[in-house]
């Protein structure tokens, strides 16, 4: 049976893993390569590394971090942050990534999705969407808006429509982050996740708000997510993938349990 995926996310700045609360308040949490291996050994189904500064000067550092992290990592490995062209993506693949996650650059130039896909396959392209509910609207979920530039800039585009377009342009997966929930540890935005998951055929990865195992079970069931991302939940000894997956499995969600 196809299992639901738990994806460990490492937010990286200047070669170190950090975790912000609602995109600010940065706290140092360690070495990316070391943490990636620890997560994989504990049963994380995939590893995502997001370069949250993604400055031009930082590219060399990032590629070095990707190379170190990918060495001896034998689960799927995604890299995102600052990928603006097919050449940027090629450099990240060459350093050992299996997939790239693109966000602002895909909004700015949607053709980029197909350009990366034509060389590396659709499965290698994740379109990340930072979403915020449209408070004050009669349907705040349907009218939820896409934000870019690390959540600083509204785009005027609707989340569900953009997810559909990304799929048509050849995205392999959608990584949906709820900015309203991110960092709160109060649970995922299940309603928004379900709306997007029902709108597209490709897998949807839910992100933002994980605080406990119950939250994961909810987003897999009510949110119809195919995978869910967790970052801060792991880093400070709250739990590890092994414990988390055992609890999610006990709640009736198919999980790959490490031996």
């Amino acid at each position: 049976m196809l299992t639901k995926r738990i994806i460990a996310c490492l937010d990286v700045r200047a070669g170190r893993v950090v975790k912000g609360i609602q995109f600010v308040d940065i706290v140092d949490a360690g070495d990316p390569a070391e943490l990636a291996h620890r997560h994989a050994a504990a049963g994380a189904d995939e590893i995502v590394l997001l370069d949250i500064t993604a400055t031009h000067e930082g590219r060399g550092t990032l590629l070095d971090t990707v190379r170190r992290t990918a060495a001896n990592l034998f689960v799927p490995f995604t890299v995102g942050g600052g990928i603006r062209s097919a050449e940027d993506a090629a450099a990240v693949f060459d350093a050992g990534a299996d997939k790239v996650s693109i966000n602002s650059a895909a909004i700015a130039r949607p053709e980029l999705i197909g350009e990366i896909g034509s060389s590396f396959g659709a499965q290698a392209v994740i379109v990340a969407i930072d979403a915020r509910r449209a408070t004050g609207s009669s349907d705040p979920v349907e009218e939820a808006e896409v934000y870019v530039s690390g959540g600083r800039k509204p785009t005027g585009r609707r989340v569900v429509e953009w997810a559909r377009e990304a799929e048509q342009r050849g995205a392999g997966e959608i990584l949906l982050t709820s900015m309203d929930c991110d960092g709160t540890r109060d649970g995922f935005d299940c309603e928004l996740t379900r709306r997007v998951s029902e709108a597209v055929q490709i897998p949807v990865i839910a992100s933002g708000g994980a605080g406990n195992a119950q939250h994961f079970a909810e987003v897999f069931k009510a949110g119809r997510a195919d995978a869910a991302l967790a970052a801060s939940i792991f880093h400070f000894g709250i739990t590890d993938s092994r414990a988390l997956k055992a609890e999610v499995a006990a709640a009736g969600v198919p999980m790959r349990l490490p031996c």
Partner: protein
Amino acid sequence: MIAVIDYKAGNLTSVVKALRHLGAHDIVVTQSPDDVLLADKVVLPGVGHFQATQLLHDLCLTNATREAAAKGTPFLGICVGLQWLYEGSTEAPVTPGLAHFAGICERFPATFNGEELKSPHVGWNSLDDIRPSSRLLTGIAPGSFVYYTHSWRAPVSADTAATTNYGGAFTAAVERDNVMGVQFHPEKSAETGLRVLKNFLAL
């Protein structure tokens, strides 16, 4: 020498990295039929569109593979590399496969048992009906999880060495003598995947 065939279908870094990790150091990433004929083992990775396998014909690698297979060289196709071992795929009907195994690869159905079936099939799924005599799957316990990402699949036949269930059973691994293939990505399937590659290297 292990020849890893590069036919511009995706990224070979991960496969080569996994083989090196398992102690294979004499690896040649190649498009040359001569390398395929000289190699002790041949690996055909590949993700993406079946159409990309057209390059194998254009580079005369189809005949080289046939010849290598006939003289007993262990051959492993991965993902689209497995699909190419069949007669063809509905993904690219004008591009024939090697036809070493009978059957045509087809797309996952849109629905199964009345329920919507998402496609591509992405994620970790279990190996079932593992053939006990399979050399490639030696030591792999039934129910072990492996990582998939694909929209087309090969039919189950007498050569199937293991199945996986998604919208019905499909061929997860195929094996007849020295020619074998896996639909999943062993280089991305943690310990289970590394064991498969280790078994192949030990042939």
